[in-house]
C-alpha cells in the first residue's frame, strides 16, 4: 500500500546547521498493516510523516501510495487519501467552527458540492452516528465550537475527521502524548477500534514502548533518519519492553561512540 524508496531529505543544506533528517530510508507497508514507530527525539519520525504528506519535497527518493507515485504531488491532493492526527490537539481542528462543520470539511474528501449548504442534514446524521460510537457523548454537542472541547475530545474529533472517509493511509503522530493517562487510554482504544473496523493501513508514532508493542502488527525503530530495526510476527510477540529498552540503550551508546570517534578523528 505504501512504498517509500530511498527517501533522502537534508534541511538547511550548505549552512552551518545543515541536517540530514531522512537518510536513504526505505519502508514498505502492506495493505491493512498497523505499524508503530518508536525512536529518540529528533530521529526523524515526524519528518517522515511530513515527507509522506507532502509538507516538503524529498531531495531524493520516491513515495508510492497504492501503486501511485505521489513523490511530487501537492499536499492537499495527497490528503485525499491520507489522514493525519498530530500530537497537538489544536492542530487538527478549526477552533471557531462547530464539530459538525469540522467534520463536514473533512468529508469533502468524499462529497463536495461547492454551492450546496453545508453540513447537510444527511451528513449531520452520519456524523452523529459515527461520533456516538466513540462513547464520549459528543453526539449531543454537534453544534459546539471545537475550541470549547477538552484535548481528548478534540483528538477524538480529529480522529473521526481523518477516518470519516476511510483513508488509504492513516498517520498518527504521538496523538495521545498531550493527554492525561486516562484520556490517552480512551483515545487509544477508539483508535484501535476505528483501525480495526475499517481495516486501515496505519503508521503510528509513539514514545510509549508498551503501546508500541501492544498495538498494531509491526514495530519499527528509527534513528538518525533511517530505520534501525523492524520487527513483526513472532519476533515481535516475543519482545518485551525491557528488550526494546536494552536495544534502544545499546544503539544510543553505539551512536555516541560513533560521534566520539568522529570527533577524535577530526581533532
Amino acid at each position, binding site marked *: 500500500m505504501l512504498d517509500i524508496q530511498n527517501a533522502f531529505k537534508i534541511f538547511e543544506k550548505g549552512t552551518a546547521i545543515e541536517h540530514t533528517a531522512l537518510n536513504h530510508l526505505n519502508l514498505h507497508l502492506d495493505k491493512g498493516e498497523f505499524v508503530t514507530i518508536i525512536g529518540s527525539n529528533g530521529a526523524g519520525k515526524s519528518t517522515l510523516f511530513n515527507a509522506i504528506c507532502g509538507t516538503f519535497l524529498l531531495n531524493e527518493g520516491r513515495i508510492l501510495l497504492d501503486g501511485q507515485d505521489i513523490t511530487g504531488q501537492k499536499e*492537499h491532493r495527497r490528503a485525499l487519501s491520507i489522514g*493525519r492526527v498530530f500530537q497537538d490537539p489544536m492542530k487538527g*481542528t478549526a477552533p471557531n*467552527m462547530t464539530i459538525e*462543520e469540522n467534520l463536514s*470539511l473533512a468529508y469533502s474528501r468524499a462529497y463536495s458540492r461547492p454551492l450546496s*449548504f453545508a453540513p447537510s442534514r444527511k451528513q449531520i446524521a452520519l456524523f452523529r452516528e459515527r461520533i456516538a460510537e466513540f462513547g464520549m457523548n459528543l453526539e449531543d454537542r454537534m453544534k459546539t465550537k471545537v475550541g470549547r472541547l477538552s484535548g481528548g475530545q478534540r483528538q477524538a474529533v480529529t480522529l473521526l475527521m481523518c477516518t470519516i472517509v476511510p483513508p488509504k493511509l492513516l498517520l498518527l503522530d504521538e496523538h495521545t502524548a498531550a493527554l492525561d493517562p486516562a484520556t490517552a487510554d480512551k483515545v487509544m482504544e477508539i483508535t484501535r477500534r476505528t483501525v480495526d473496523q475499517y481495516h486501515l493501513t496505519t503508521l503510528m508514532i509513539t514514545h510509549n514502548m508498551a503501546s508500541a508493542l501492544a498495538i498494531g502488527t509491526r514495530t519499527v525503530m528509527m534513528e538518525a533518519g533511517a530505520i534501525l530495526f523492524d520487527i513483526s510476527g513472532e519476533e515481535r510477540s516475543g519482545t518485551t519492553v525491557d528488550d526494546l529498552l536494552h536495544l534502544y540503550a545499546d544503539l544510543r551508546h553505539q551512536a555516541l561512540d560513533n560521534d566520539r570517534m568522529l570527533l577524535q578523528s577530526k581533532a
Partner: protein
Amino acid sequence: MKLLIGSLQLGLLYGILALGIYISFRILSIPDLTTEGSFAFGLSVSAAITAAGHPVLAIFAAMAAGALAGSVTGLLQTRFGIHPILSGIITMSGLYSINLAVLGGSPNLSLVRAATLFKLFPFMSKNDAMTVLPIAAALLFLTLVILFFHTHVGMCIRAVGDNEDMVRASSINVNACKVLSFSVSNALVALSGALIAQYQGYADISSSTGILVVGLASVIIGEAMFGRRSVTIGFISAVAGSLIYRYIIALATRYSPLPAYMLKLVSAVIVALALAIPALRQNMKEARQKEGGKAHA
C-alpha cells in the same frame, strides 16, 4: 431628519464595503490593502460606463473589476508568496494608474447629465430611489453573503481563516480558497464604490483614500454592539456599524468645529483605539496584579 436619511443612505451603500472588509479582515484575518484601489476601481468603472449610457451594466462591470483586482492580490500572496500586506499595496498602486486611465486620464468625472440607476425607475422619484435602492442593495448582498458563507465553499473559506493546516489536511486547496475570498471581498468593495459614484453623481478617485479605515471602523463599531459571535451576526453587525459610523460622521460634520478634512484623522483614531483596547485591558490587568502583589508583600 434629513441628516438621518442621508446617513441611512450612505451607511447602507458603505455597508456593502463593510461586508467586503469583514471577509478579509475577520474571516480570513488578513487586512487587505487592495480595498483602496478596488473601491476606486469600482467607482471609476461605474462612472465611465454610466457616462456612456449603461448604468446597470456599469454595476456588474464594476463588480467584475473588483473581483479581478482581488484575485490579483490573492495570486500574488499564494502563487508568488508575497507578503499579504505587500500584495495589497502592489495591487492598490497599480490600480491608481488603471483608474486614471478608466476615467480618461482625469481624476474625476461628473455624472450630472448621465442617466444613473437612481433616475431609472419611472414609478419612483430620484429622491425616493436614493433611499429605496440602497436598502434593497444592502439587504440583497447581506443575504447573499450570509448564504454564501453557509455553503460548502463558504465554510472552507471560514476554516482557512481559522486553521489553514487543517483545511489543507482535509484535501482542500487553501490557495484557491484565498483567491476566491479576495475576489468576493473586492467585488463587494468595488460594488460599494460603483453605487456611491452613481449616488453622488460624480466619481472622484481621491475619495477612496482611507476607505479601508472607514470599513474597519464600521466592522469594529458593529462588533462593539453585537459582540463577535457567528458570521451571520458578523455580517449584519458590519452593516449596522456602517450606519452608525455614517451617523456619527454626519453629526460631526454638522456640529463639531472641526473642518471636514479632519474626518479621516478622527476615523483613524477611532480604529486605532478600538484595536488597541484588548492590549490596553491586558496592561491594566497586569498593572493591577503588580499593585496587588506589592500590597501583600
